[in-house]
């Protein structure tokens, strides 16, 4: 079984935010509007965390794209009372939307705060709904959602490989963020395979993970900036 994982090279990332928007478009994530955004209810599966160190003009600004870390020991799945979120065989922390009762325990349990909640029924003005991605479920009100590593693409890649009677290749399956990144800062692949690109990058001395001290064993690694 593959273990899907991601490496984000912060030395390549310029913080342009294309991954964030690509993710929103690919996954039909609701646009919540001006007022709800002001209430802090903007829904982002991929987010960019910006930090500032120092004082002008000696300021170090860091941009850190943050998807779901798809932990090997995810705190969110352990608190779900209905099994709506679980770690699947391939290492993806998946969501079963119809099973979610909207208790939001998982949202609280996640130390990385990647989970987001549908406070309202998603709306698309006019005919914009026509442009939704038909591969991805639109989540109704009262359901928690988060980054799925674009699991619908995995499904598709597997079906395609099956039709062509071959094994799934590393490059067959790439999430939207990694695919669109203009600077190719995001790499994605099978971390279980020691020869894959992500496994090699993980062995890079610059590699680090966030939240390892919590014992969650994230599968998203970062390569630190070269100072």
């Amino acid at each position, binding site marked *: 079984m593959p273990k899907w994982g991601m490496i984000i*090279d912060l030395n*390549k*990332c*310029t*913080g*342009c*935010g*294309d991954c*964030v*928007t690509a993710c*929103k*478009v690919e996954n039909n994530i609701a*646009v919540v*509007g*001006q007022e709800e*955004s*002001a209430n802090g209810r903007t829904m982002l599966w991929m*987010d*960019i965390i*910006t930090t*500032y160190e120092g*004082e*002008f*003009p*000696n*300021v*170090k*600004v860091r*941009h850190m794209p943050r998807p779901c870390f798809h932990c090997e020991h995810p705190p969110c799945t352990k608190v779900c009372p209905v099994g709506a979120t679980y770690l699947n065989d391939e290492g993806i922390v998946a969501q*079963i*939307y*119809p099973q979610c009762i909207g208790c939001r325990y998982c949202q609280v349990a996640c130390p990385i705060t990647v989970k987001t909640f549908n406070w309202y*029924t*998603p*709306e*698309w*003005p*006019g*005919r*914009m*709904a*026509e*442009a*939704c*991605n*038909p*591969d991805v*479920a*639109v989540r*109704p*009100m009262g359901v928690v959602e988060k980054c799925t590593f674009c699991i619908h693409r995995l499904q*598709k890649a597997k*079906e*395609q490989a099956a039709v062509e009677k071959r094994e799934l290749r590393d490059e067959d399956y790439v999430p939207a963020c990694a695919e*669109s*990144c*203009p*600077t*190719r*800062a995001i790499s994605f692949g099978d971390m279980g395979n020691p020869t894959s690109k992500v496994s090699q990058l993980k062995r890079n001395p610059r590699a680090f993970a966030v939240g390892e001290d919590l014992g969650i064993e994230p599968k998203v690694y970062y390569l630190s900036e070269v100072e």
Partner: protein
Amino acid sequence: MEISRRDFLRLLGISTAGVAAGSVGCNTIWSVPDEVVEKIGGAPRRESWKTSVCSLCPSGCGIKVRLIDGIPVRILGNSINPVNRNGLCPMGETGIEALFNPNRIKHPLKRVGSRGENKWEKVSWDEAIQSIVTRLQSLREKSEPHKMAFWSSQGNNLQSGLIEQFTTAFGSPNFFQFDDNNVAKLATRITLGHEKQLAYNFENIDLLINFGGDFLDAGPAPVRFNQIYAEIRNRENGQQAKIIHIDSRLSRTATNSDEFIAVKPGTMAALALGVANVLINDGQYDDEFIAKNSFGFFDWQSKEGKSFNGFKHFIEREYYPEKVAKITGVTASQIVDLARKLSAAKSALVLSGGQASASTNGLYTSWAIECLNALKGNFKENSPISLAPHPPFAEIQEVQMDGIATKGLARTGLSQAAGDFCFAEYSVSNIPDAISQQNPVEILFLANANPVFNAINQAGFTKALSEIPFIVSFSSFMDESNAFADLILPDHVYLEKHEIVHSIPMIDFAHFSVQQPVIEPLFDTRHPGDVIIQIAQKIGGTVASSLPWVGYKEYLQDRVKGIYETGTGLPFSEEGDEKWLKYLKERGWQIFEFTNFKEFWQVLLEKGGWWDPFPQQMDFNNVFATPSRKFEFFSQLLEKEIQSHVQTDAISSDNIAAVLAKLKIAAPGDMAFIPHYEIPHFDDGDGRFDLHLLPFNLITNVNGMGNNMPLAQEMFGMLTREYWNSWLEINPETAHEKGISEGDFVKVTSSRGSLTVRAKLLPTTMPGTICIPFGLGRINGATSKRVGVNPYSLLVEKYDHLRGIPSLISTKVSVKKANGREAV
């Protein structure tokens, strides 16, 4: 669209049934909105892809659009388009929202209410076009064709050529483009003697010094520059280049650089010349280039025997580091260090942009910065700088002009009427006044130009537009300027039309990308090009014979035939093939062969465009078109221009000082013709305002072009977590002095007005300055609520003293914590 939980489960049933029926490639738990389910029914959900070009901003990124049953659902970068190589920006991702936006103008509209009332009536295309033709014909009958004006934006597509053909044949000198590239065009006029643009190769440089260019967020090609910045810091051969950024604000471009040097607003020229001083003192400049290919570096004598001090003399005397340090706020040791890094670099490149040219001394500043490239000897073969090549399009057939047109064209255009500037062709400063006074316009066409929203002097443009008797707009959406229109002839959005976008600034290979409709037009809209051709045909005479095409697509194909016939370059091809192609080309192989033009055009549509990856070696001896045919440290062109002002103003020629004073140039005598630091002018409301306003652009909504996409607005300030909202950046120190805390509503006041906006305390802002992003400040069509604020409304009409180009950093403001009422 409402989806209840029950509906959701129902949809789930439908969709899983669909999967069972043999549809490939979907998640077992997908569901789609009702309308789409209805449309696709049990259809096979066939996926297809089409290539095109994004036109939301002028940087012309190639895109490929994913269509499901003919409906576009996703826009990705075209991986074989060499302009953006697979990349896209956040605004580009949201493009489909523009297509399906309910606020689109769906058919031609005629104004029925008073101007600004926003009351419209549907008219037919024939009626609308006929009413325009009648008016245009009567202008020609009265022999007043110059009273027609045409304003557009974005110069790098072929539509501007068609518009120019039309206005010229008609006889109007008033075709004006609100184009960001105007700034760069005049800078090269001084240094190179023509308006061809420079292009840069970043492949082998080991040092990049960027004076103020916010290339990662604002134009000319942000996606490309994000890639370039990432590439030169992560070269596979380990030879990383250093990037030094010089600016008054730590923009995202600055934070992605290795080193940042903060300068006081408007003083970059002094810093550049300070660096030149150190280079000259160290003797670290390219002797050979200076001796052979430059003019005015050493002391020299004119033909009349008058002797002049050279650039070297002048820089040694005026710009020693200690003096520059006082002007710029950069320490003397930092200046020396910067210069030593520049001289130590094997291949260094100096760029300027953004704030460097946005001050009242902008042209002198760009020129001073360019001098560093000259000292480094970058204007020669095998250097990182070359002239931007253009694709060899077929020339448009020669324009035919009758007597009326010739007379009309001989008149002074609206922008040239500005007598207070040396080079006024691209000046917008005089347009509003010219319309109100000397040069009344009777018919104005607006194609994508929205000066009421994004030009300096909003009040002037508002007044001018309200005085023009007849305005025709080609917008797809309602905006601030077409609210004044009498007729709106809605354009398609970019996903529905043909266009060719070419020659993106700063790119060192010839290229063009083909925009094609990925979907049939959703509404009763037409391409402005088609409408212009139709109008010309109806006017008849030489106007009609100058625009003989059946439609805009035929015009495009006619132009592209030039490339087909020369046989140069090739359609975009897969990455990696490049080296192989080069190998073949060098050995004289014809790489692509087409039996006819139709076949060539089909391949262009499929691949997304054409490029010439084999640039010819630049012969820099032919590049300089200055009077001396060399790089001029003493600009004879500028001298000539100012002399001509002396003549027109009938001032005795010794009294150049009077002319310089009129042009607001402070440098005495001959110094005016040498790059120098002019003290920038700021409007501080007679001492009432103490903080510099430094507005900036964001990649999520460059110049407000993302305002028709809800997602682009939601993502507006994703890095500062201000979604759907503007903010004010202020240094914590300055904020403390003013009693402002994080998140406070702040009232910002300038001589032009005031606005209220939330404060963000960020260390990226220089003390004594505040920054507000451009882009928002519109009424949201859906909710009629104002989204954010528009800093243009604060900007005072200050212009570059030589060019009349808007000076965006010359306004000072005061800030004060807003009281409760103002905050609402």
